[in-house]
């Protein structure tokens, strides 16, 4: 009997609580006890000060994740601070969806000033997946902000409320995988550890941060070098708390719906079995460039047999927390460290370096992961060297007797080692392609392909005008990725299966049937680019993954999940407004660092060098038309057409008045 009454009481209590919450929904929003943990952890490594801050003052304006991080970086990291200075901040951010049952909640946004970009110090925006972010949230923090510089190598150990800065001398010099294991043993076996490898220690400008698992690394922008400059080897987190959810039942339903949508994807069975390995090494070749953007067709690449390789070595497919779509091929290949790869890291070490041997590809890419540096940038460096060698600018004497012929396997592996350790010629390349080109001289700058200092993704930009605009005006240098489905369709427009969908979307969304036809410089393309820029920021703000939202999952469902978790009632148009505001804030940060219209451009060869073969033979970007597209883009954004600076009126409309005043003071207007 006691049992029964107890049960009744409990359910009645719950019911009353729910009723109370329904009647006062706003109360939940203000209390912010759901979704957010409400705390920001600040660690100053110089004077070893650990302090707490509140998320509340930022969350209303910028929701979470990348948005709040951008705001903090803008406020506290002025143009006088150089990327490698102690004053640079390294911000790890989670958002309301992190650490819940929503797939993609494992993403962590990492924000700092980038040492790689040109001009130096633009905002670096990168991220990792896995399990570290949720762990940080369970430990009770939304964001972790690291500033200062330690006098000796240290690692940070976070065990819920106990935060310690510990000595890491014995881990310095170890690779990222090994260091993570050693730190785990030193601190707490169940913790999640982010580490940097030797590349970060040596301040290789495109070093990355390993996200706690043996597959997910932060990739682009050089956050690892910033972490290395702070003498910080790793961050171990152990959290036993929880992320409170306002409407658990509703969230459970949304999670079920989300899983259903992913499982209904036509490519899902294949992704589950083989991941993107095969897709990247076969289908992607149709719209990828080869080498240093030299050509588009290289027949030997078509002989690769990714299926055999995965069948032989694959342990399993692996992914991030609570996600049914495993993105990473986790393989045990003899001679390479046990680990996983996904996406661009698979394809670049084949296409960019003229390499059709999967073993070399795997070894080079996993080596990049253990040294912890960006695979795309490393491949770009090798491609750059190969072109210089071919042009006769450098010879084997300049590279320690190694011949940088196209696809030379020995050269590829050697270059990875040397760059990461900054040895001989690797020391020059470790500063990024444009800086290396200047140091080499002898006309090497002609071969330096970069946008704002970063090697672009490997698309045939000459053929895809929308993509080229996105790349040109994009925030992260060579990194912007087409996220909105509309813009993505430009890539596969000629595919007979995709064409009808692309035409339909063109008609419905932009009113013109062939709006997404690759060769068009139309205004609808500009709008598609703007859509894509917004679509990229949505998942980052909410705390889910751009690989799912909005490609397979509508943004509205992610928003529904956000509302169910936080108990708020955020509408779609409100989210878009925040996304737009974030675009402007990020632009303003870059403008303050010196970005103007002339920086929003593409490598020279996209304007001069015609595509020499394949489907898009003869395609080239007409500079005049490209500039006109840029005009329209600035106009649409409300930026000054002449300079590319957001106007005062636009900033006021966005609610960023403070920035306009600051620009006045700095003499930017």
């Amino acid at each position, binding site marked *: 009997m*006691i*049992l029964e009454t*107890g049960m009744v009481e409990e359910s009645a209590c719950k019911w009353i609580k729910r009723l109370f919450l329904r009647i006062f929904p706003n109360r939940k929003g203000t209390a912010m006890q759901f979704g957010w943990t409400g705390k920001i952890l600040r660690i100053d490594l110089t004077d070893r000060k650990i302090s707490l801050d509140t998320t509340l003052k930022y969350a209303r304006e910028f929701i979470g994740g990348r948005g709040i991080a951008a705001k903090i970086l803008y406020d506290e990291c002025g143009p006088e601070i150089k990327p490698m200075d102690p004053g640079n901040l390294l911000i790890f951010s989670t958002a309301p969806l992190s*650490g*819940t*049952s929503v*797939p993609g909640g494992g993403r962590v946004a990492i924000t700092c000033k980038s040492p790689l970009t040109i001009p130096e110090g633009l905002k670096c925006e990168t991220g990792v997946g896995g*399990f570290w972010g949720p762990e940080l949230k*369970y430990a009770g923090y939304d964001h972790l902000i690291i500033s200062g510089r330690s006098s000796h190598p240290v690692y940070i150990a976070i065990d819920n409320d106990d935060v310690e800065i510990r000595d890491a001398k014995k881990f310095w010099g170890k690779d990222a995988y090994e260091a993570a*294991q050693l730190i*785990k043993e030193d601190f707490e076996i169940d913790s999640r550890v982010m580490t940097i490898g030797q590349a970060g220690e040596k301040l290789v400008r495109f070093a990355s941060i390993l996200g706690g*698992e*043996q*597959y997910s690394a932060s990739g682009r922008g050089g956050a690892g070098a910033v972490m290395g400059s702070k003498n910080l080897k790793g961050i171990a987190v152990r959290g*036993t*708390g*929880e*992320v*409170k*959810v306002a409407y*658990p039942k509703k*969230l*459970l339903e949304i*999670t*079920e719906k989300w*899983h259903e949508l992913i*499982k209904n994807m036509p490519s899902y069975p294949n992704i*589950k079995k083989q991941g993107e390995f095969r897709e990247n090494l076969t289908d992607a070749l149709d719209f990828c460039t080869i080498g240093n953007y030299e050509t588009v067709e290289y027949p030997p690449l078509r002989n690769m047999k990714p299926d055999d390789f995965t069948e032989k070595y694959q*342990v*399993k*497919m*692996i*992914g*991030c*927390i*609570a*996600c*049914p*779509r*495993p993105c990473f091929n*986790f393989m*045990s290949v003899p001679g390479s460290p*046990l680990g996983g790869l996904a996406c661009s890291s698979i394809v670049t070490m084949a296409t960019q370096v003229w390499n059709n041997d999967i073993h070399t590809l795997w070894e080079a890419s996993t080596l990049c992961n253990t040294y912890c540096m960006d695979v795309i940038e490393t491949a770009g460096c090798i491609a750059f060297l190969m072109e210089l060698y071919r042009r006769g600018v450098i010879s084997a004497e300049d590279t320690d007797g190694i011949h940088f012929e196209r696809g030379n396997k020995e050269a590829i592996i050697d270059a990875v080692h040397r760059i990461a350790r900054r040895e001989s010629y690797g020391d020059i390349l470790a500063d990024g392609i444009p800086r290396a080109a200047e140091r080499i001289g002898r006309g090497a700058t002609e071969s330096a392909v970069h946008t704002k200092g970063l090697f672009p993704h490997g698309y045939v930009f000459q053929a895809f005008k929308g993509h080229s605009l996105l790349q040109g005006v994009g925030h992260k240098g060579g990194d912007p990725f087409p996220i909105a489905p509309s813009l993505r369709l430009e890539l596969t427009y000629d595919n007979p299966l995709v064409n009808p969908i692309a035409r339909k979307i063109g008609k419905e969304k932009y009113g013109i049937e062939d709006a997404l036809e690759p060769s068009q410089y139309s205004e609808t393309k500009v709008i598609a680019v703007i859509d894509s820029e917004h679509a990229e920021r949505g998942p980052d703000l909410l705390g889910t993954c751009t690989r799912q939202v909005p490609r397979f999952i509508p943004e509205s469902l992610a928003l529904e999940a956000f509302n169910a978790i936080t108990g708020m009632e955020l509408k779609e148009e409100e989210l878009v407004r925040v996304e737009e505001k974030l675009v402007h804030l990020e632009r303003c940060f870059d403008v303050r660092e010196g970005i103007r219209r002339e920086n929003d451009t593409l490598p020279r060869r996209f304007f001069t060098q015609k595509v020499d073969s394949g489907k898009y033979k003869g395609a080239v970007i007409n500079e005049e038309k490209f500039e006109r597209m840029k005009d329209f883009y600035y106009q649409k954004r409300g930026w000054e057409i002449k300079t590319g600076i957001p106007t005062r009126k636009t900033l006021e409309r966005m609610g960023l008045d403070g920035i306009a005043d600051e620009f006045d003071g700095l003499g930017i207007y």
Partner: protein
Amino acid sequence: MTEKMLVIDPDKCIGCRTCEMVCSLKHTDGCSETRSRVRVITQKTQDNSLPIMCQHCEKPLCQEVCPAKATYRDLTTHAMIIDKDKCLGCKMCIIACPFGAPSFDPVDRVTIKCDLCEGDPECVKLCPSETLKFVRADKIGIMEKRMGLEKLFKTISVLIG
């Protein structure tokens, strides 16, 4: 109602911890690994992981050691359940369990364990890798036999060529 059992296939687990998330969401007001009834243990090198959860033993040690007699069997689902109100939080059952399946809830201050969600386990519904299955008890034996036979045929076909 036919008796159903939870079966775990260790070969398939990808270690995504979806089960932990949905379990804690179903039983509490939040997502948390410490408050989940199922815990995924991943090996150091990350190539192996496995969800650990209550096996609802026929002769449960947790019941035998419980000083408060808080564990009982639900007769409709055949699940062993800990009565939250009777539990002292002494953690004896965690030590006694051969799998270490029960865990201690740091918020409610009681020991928690899988209750099969009243016969419709949420973790099984959402497990993306089909590691967790909820099948009829009388089918388990035959299922295992069939899987064993498949492996045998595979080996034979490899041997024959």
